[in-house]
């Protein structure tokens, strides 16, 4: 007789056990009593859509520069400002050298307040006239300062303290 076969038979006999009749119903009852928020109840499509929406929002927040939304501010392109106040062509540039493209992009749009822009336009269009030079005093006259000598009253020697 092959001892391995005997051993296999012993092992199979030892493991030929069946659960009780109430085992399967107990498992079903316990599963039924589990909270309904099982993870696989969430539709996969909703998860994918939500993930894509969050990714798009994150990318948008990362790469779009924030813009001021004040009502009294307007973006004045540098071409318009040049039209109002053209710089002399031969003037040497003293502005700092622009190193990066992002810096150039920021400097290309000059932001001024609406009231300031209107004042500049009115000034250069001639609506506002500078005050006449005669009203400004030519020389400021300061009167000489007189200093009076301080005289101390005479106090007898024994009255001090």
């Amino acid at each position, binding site marked *: 007789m092959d001892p391995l076969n005997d*051993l296999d038979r012993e*092992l199979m*006999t030892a493991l030929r056990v069946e659960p009780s009749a109430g085992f399967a119903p107990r498992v079903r009852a316990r*599963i039924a009593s589990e909270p309904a928020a099982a993870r696989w109840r969430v539709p996969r499509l909703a998860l994918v859509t939500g993930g894509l929406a969050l990714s798009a929002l994150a990318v948008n927040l990362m790469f779009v520069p924030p813009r001021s939304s004040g009502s009294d501010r307007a973006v004045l392109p540098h071409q318009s400002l040049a039209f109002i106040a053209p710089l002399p062509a031969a003037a040497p540039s003293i502005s700092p050298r622009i190193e990066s493209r992002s810096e150039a992009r920021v400097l290309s749009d000059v932001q001024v307040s609406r009231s300031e822009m209107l004042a500049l336009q009115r000034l250069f269009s001639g609506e506002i006239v500078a005050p006449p030079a005669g009203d400004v005093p030519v020389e400021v006259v300061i009167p000489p300062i007189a200093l009076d000598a301080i005289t101390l009253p005479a106090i007898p020697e024994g009255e001090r303290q």
Partner: protein
Amino acid sequence: MTRMRAESLWVPIAAVDDELEREFEARLADCSTLAFRVAFSVLRHREDAEDVAQDALVRAHRSFHKLRNRDRFRAWLVRTTWRLALDHRRGEERRLVRQFEHQLSATTGADETAEARERANHLWSAIDALPEKLRMPLVMFSIAGHDVAEVARLLRLPEGTVKSRLFHARRQLQERLQWIR
């Protein structure tokens, strides 16, 4: 084609739930005894084995969306049940008396029953003394209906590795169980 595929994604959630429940019910009928036997092979206590198998099946239900493939489900269930049973057994080491159960034929007499019980105790003691990596393939192979290929699938091991471990496990058992010869 694309439109049909897109529409197929919009299956009502209730229908998906029903389908999953039906699939899980089929797995439960197929694998609940397997889970119980795996737990019993570690614990050798019927009620403890049922509790552990029940825990494993509830966990399987929670993760069923990842375990719809039959082979994957069985492999996951066997490993989880084995691990839970070992944890349970470590927690129950305080028990000095372990109930050894053995399925006996109804036709055996009183003397045969006592002898069979003693043989079963010897057998389980020898199995317990095996290293883990030899014990698990041996038990899986001995559960009815499992051949080497099935054990390899359950344990996610190459068939050659399973054969080698079965060989070494049997040899060690033979050395311990002189009554087999």
